Every structure is written in C-alpha cells, then in structure tokens.
C-alpha cells in the first residue's frame, strides 16, 4: 500500500481526489439537491455526519468483521447512521427535511461513503480514518455548495435566500431544474480540466527548460 502522511489523508479528499469533482462519486445528491445553497448545506451536513461516524465505527471494528460479510456490514453501519440523520433532520430541521425528501435516505447508496470504508477505513486506524472522512466530507461539501451557489444565484437571483439583483432580475429557471444541475457540473468540470491542463503544460515546459 502507498504510504501517506496524516495531512495527506486529510487534504486528499478535499482537492486532488475530491469525491464529486474528481472521483465522480455521489453525483446523485450533487445533481438533485443543489438547487439552493441551503439545501446543499443540509445535504452536506447529513453526509458529513454519516461518513465520519461510519469511518470511526468501521475502522474500530474492522478486526471483528469477517471479510466475507464486510460489504453488508458497512452498508448496515451506513444505513443506521443515515436513519439517525434522517430522524434528527426531520425533528429539528423539518423545512429542510421536506425539501430534501427522499434524498436523505438515499445517502445510504452514496458510493463515496461505501468507497471510503472499503478503500481506507477497513485498513487504517481510527485517527487516520477520521482524518480521511473529514477531508472527504469537506470536499463533498465544497463541491455541493459551489454547485448550489451557481444554481441559486442564476436560477433565483439570490444567495442563501438573500436577494442579490433586486426585483428586475429575470431568473434562469432552467438552473434550478434538473437540467441546470448537469449544466453546472459540466462547466465546473470543464474549468477544472482547463486548470489541470495548464498546470501540466507549465510543468512540462519547466522540465524542458531544466533539461
């Protein structure tokens, strides 16, 4: 296994291996509930809670889980925390819970969470697993809030329900509809690919100069 430092574990999920924008995992919530920043934040908070708790539990119980039933055990762990998150949201943030609807329950099948358990928590200690989970959770939050921000600003002319452009702004309704999610994700990926391309070009130029 490739050795990493704790800080690498933490940062990796935020940028180089951002779950949504690089690994393309967890796209269902990223497309479905990012029509406003508030929804994106609620979704991120629930996912963050689930991935952190699951990682702690999986990494601390990994010795007791036979590898034949590990996937079912991980799913069971994740499903339990999702149900808890669902109930807590329904009790204390009923408006947000109604907006997110079935997508809270669908966190169970978010590949990003199961992927982290299988690829990391199952073979690292609790401390490293938690760092990895927090990093991934922050990466997921960043991606969702970025998409939610673009879509809310263009689709309703506001940010966090604070009106930006005044009453004369004609909202781009398509941005808050499902199609807008795909458009936004596409443009963000395009921008990231461009930046990455530029970086590589510069590196190869620098290498040429050196040689």
């Amino acid at each position: 296994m490739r050795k990493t430092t704790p800080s690498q574990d933490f940062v990796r999920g935020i940028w180089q291996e951002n779950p949504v924008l690089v690994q393309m995992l967890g796209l269902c919530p990223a497309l479905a509930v990012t029509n406003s920043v508030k929804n994106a934040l609620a979704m991120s908070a629930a996912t963050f809670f689930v991935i952190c708790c699951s990682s702690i539990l999986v990494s601390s119980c990994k010795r007791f889980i036979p590898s034949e039933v590990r996937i079912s055990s991980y799913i069971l762990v994740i499903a339990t925390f999702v149900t808890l998150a669902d109930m807590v949201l329904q009790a204390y943030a009923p408006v947000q819970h109604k907006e997110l609807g079935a997508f809270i329950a669908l966190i169970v099948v978010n590949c990003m969470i199961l992927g982290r358990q299988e690829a990391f928590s199952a073979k690292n200690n609790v401390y490293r697993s938690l760092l990895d989970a927090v990093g991934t959770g922050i990466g997921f939050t960043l991606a969702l809030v970025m998409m939610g921000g673009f879509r809310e600003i263009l689709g309703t002319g506001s940010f966090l329900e604070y009106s930006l452009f005044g009453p004369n702004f004609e909202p781009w309704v398509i941005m808050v509809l499902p199609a807008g999610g795909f458009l936004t994700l596409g443009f963000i990926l395009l921008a990231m690919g461009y930046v990455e391309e530029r970086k590589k070009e510069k590196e190869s130029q620098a290498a040429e100069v050196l040689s």
Partner: protein
Amino acid sequence: MSDESVTEESIEPQADSEPVATEVSTFRLVATLAVAGTLAGLLIVMMNQHTKPIIDKYKAEQLRKAVYEVLPGVDRYSTLYLVNEALSLTLPEGVKESEYKRIYAGYGGDGQLGGVAISRGESGFQDVVQIIFGFDPETGKLLGMKVLDSKETPGLGDKIFKDQSFVEQFFARPDTPLLGVKPGAGKGLSNEIDTITGATISSKVVIDIINHGLEIWRPVIDKGIPSVPSESADVEVTP
C-alpha cells in the same frame, strides 16, 4: 501528478483486500451480521423514541396553523371523522385514528359554525399536490385555500402557492364548484378562478382538488355536523 495518485488509490482496495486464507465458519458470519443488526436496531429505536414526539408535534402544529389560515375568523376547531358515512366527533373503540378520513369544523367566537376545512391531494404536474381548503356549507362559498405539499416545477407550477394574486382568489369567497378560466377570458361569474399563465395544469389541479373534494364531502356534510358543546373540554382552543 494527481492523475497518478487517483489510479493508485483506486487499485489499492483490490490489491489489498486479497482474502486471507483462513476459513471463517458460517456461524461466525451470521453472528456478526446478527449482532450488528441488533445494535443498529436498538440505536434506531432509541432515536425514534426521542424524535417522534417532536416530529408529531410539529406536524400537528402545521395542520393547526393551516386550518386557521383557510377558515378566517374561526377561534377553535374540532376534528370530525367519517364513520359509517356520517360525521362523528368520536371514533369507535379500539380503532386506529389514522385509518379514518376526517374534516375539521371551525367555530367562531359566538359558537357558530364558521366553516369546514378539508385536506385532499391529487396528482399534479410532477407529484401529488396536497392542499387544505375552507368551505362554508351554509352559503356554499369557498373560504380559503393553502397548499400543504407540492413538488410542482420551480418558477412555473410553484406559483400555485407563490403567486399571491392566484391564492387571494380563493380567499375572495368564490361560489362552488369552481371554474378555471384563462386570465381575462372570464365572464364575471362568481365561481371563476383565473388560472396562472404558464402553469395551467398546476392551477387546474388545485381547482379540481377542491371540486372533487366537495363532491365527495358535501353529501356527508349536508347530513349534518354533530354539534359541539361550546365549552366542551375536548375541543381545541386557540391560545
């Protein structure tokens, strides 16, 4: 640089999870899942016991607010259940409350019936639209309407509750059954409701729900509403 690390990372699980050559008994597999399942169940039950009262209280509060909103001028209301095709204040012994259809009868300060509130849902443009509306059985006029739940298209269909000029029409005491007309195409009848341009289906759904709801409930209501003693203890009183 980052591309390489991604590929390495994705290969990692397969390379590392090569099963260890020890044989694990079936019993151990089942036991592990059973223990995990039991613990998970316990945790969920405990959380449910904590959150359920809060959730129920919130739902009751939302309903209470909605009833007072669609029955203007009403001070208190009582829930009437549909038992054997007639309205009843009480349910037969030992039945589940949730299995019975119900309406809400609102009373004014003088103890007079101010109207009844009916909650009903039907398929809209996207998903079921759930509304509650107030109705005066004496005059046959509509008193108010509130959308409780809808997933209608943002920016178009959601005008059925965001467009105040549409909502206000239902509070202007129109006659029933309602008639949806294009804006400007009305003949000035007292039961006309202007539909929303760009959201014709959604606005017609609201009108249909009210008309169908009245078709079903009017015969029952006309049989008579059981009177409530004005100082009865089981009647909900506004604070």
